[in-house]
């Protein structure tokens, strides 16, 4: 039943319009908050397999500053996505990688 209602033309767009209208943040504020999300790209020495990638993901997973982590295995790099207004020092990142058994490849940058 619910599926059928959502399938009606205009119902989904009406729902979105209501959501935006009653949001405590205006649409502009939502966009601004999204724009504050920052990223850091770190090249990692020794990250060569899926288990390496999983270990690094696990190591960073409980860091409160992080919104998410993207492990790019073919390019041996990790992209850290921070919550709005949050960041992490290079030393902390290096320390977390070392605790996972890897090291920062300082010779490579974006």
């Amino acid at each position: 039943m619910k599926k059928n209602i959502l399938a009606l033309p205009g119902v989904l767009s009406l729902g979105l319009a209501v959501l935006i209208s009653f949001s405590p943040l205006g649409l502009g504020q939502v966009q601004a908050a999204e724009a504050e999300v920052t990223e850091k790209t770190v090249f990692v020495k020794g990250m060569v397999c899926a288990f390496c990638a999983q270990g690094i993901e696990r190591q960073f997973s409980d860091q409160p500053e992080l919104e998410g982590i993207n492990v790019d295995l073919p390019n041996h790099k990790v992209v850290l996505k921070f919550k709005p207004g949050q960041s992490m020092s290079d030393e902390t990142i290096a320390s977390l990688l070392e605790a996972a058994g890897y090291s920062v490849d300082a010779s490579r940058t974006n």
Partner: protein
Amino acid sequence: MHKTFTQSFFILLLSMGLTRAQAHPTSFQGAWSLVNESSHMGRHTMFTYSHRYWLASALHYAYFPLEEEGLEYEMAAVGVNTLLKRWNRPTSQGNFYLSLAQGREFTQGLSGRPVSLVEVDLDWEDRRYYIATGYTRHFRQSFDSDSVGISDIEVKKLRMGFAPYLGEFTELNTWFIMQAMQVNQGSVELTPLLRFYYRNALWEIGSSLKGGGFLFNFMLHM
């Protein structure tokens, strides 16, 4: 007895004939791992918990048919696995592991005898190529004078492989691997095998070139 054990241990380290060439005796901190290798030559199952990426507690179970003694060797042991050295390079990694365990045999007629397990693993891989070697020894005969006719068990392994394509870790990765393995003084068996891994699971299937049987290994990190 102690001298024999010490000598053998250092011979192991020096010989570098070096096995469980699947070689993940330790994993990332907090990881539980289940590793199983089985073929007609024997079986080794290991359950580990990694306290650090370089240190894990391990439970072992091993089974080998010993034709020369006319029996089927079985053992269970508890021990530690250590990553003694890791070489991290921009696009590759090398590892040197040492595993030690102490346990008991469950071999028929010899049940309850103490046994020590020593294993050395060395591997290197990048995303395209892989080489690993390992040496495992089950010390069965050094603990008392009543060990005539009981032999230690040695497993030597060498592996080389390559990946035909480079996948993301969220994709299925495939490797072609050739394994040479010898148990005690038996013949060296060559086994081509396929390795697959996807996220936290790895499995391998192969068949001995001698037609001696299938190989099935798996490794699961949790």
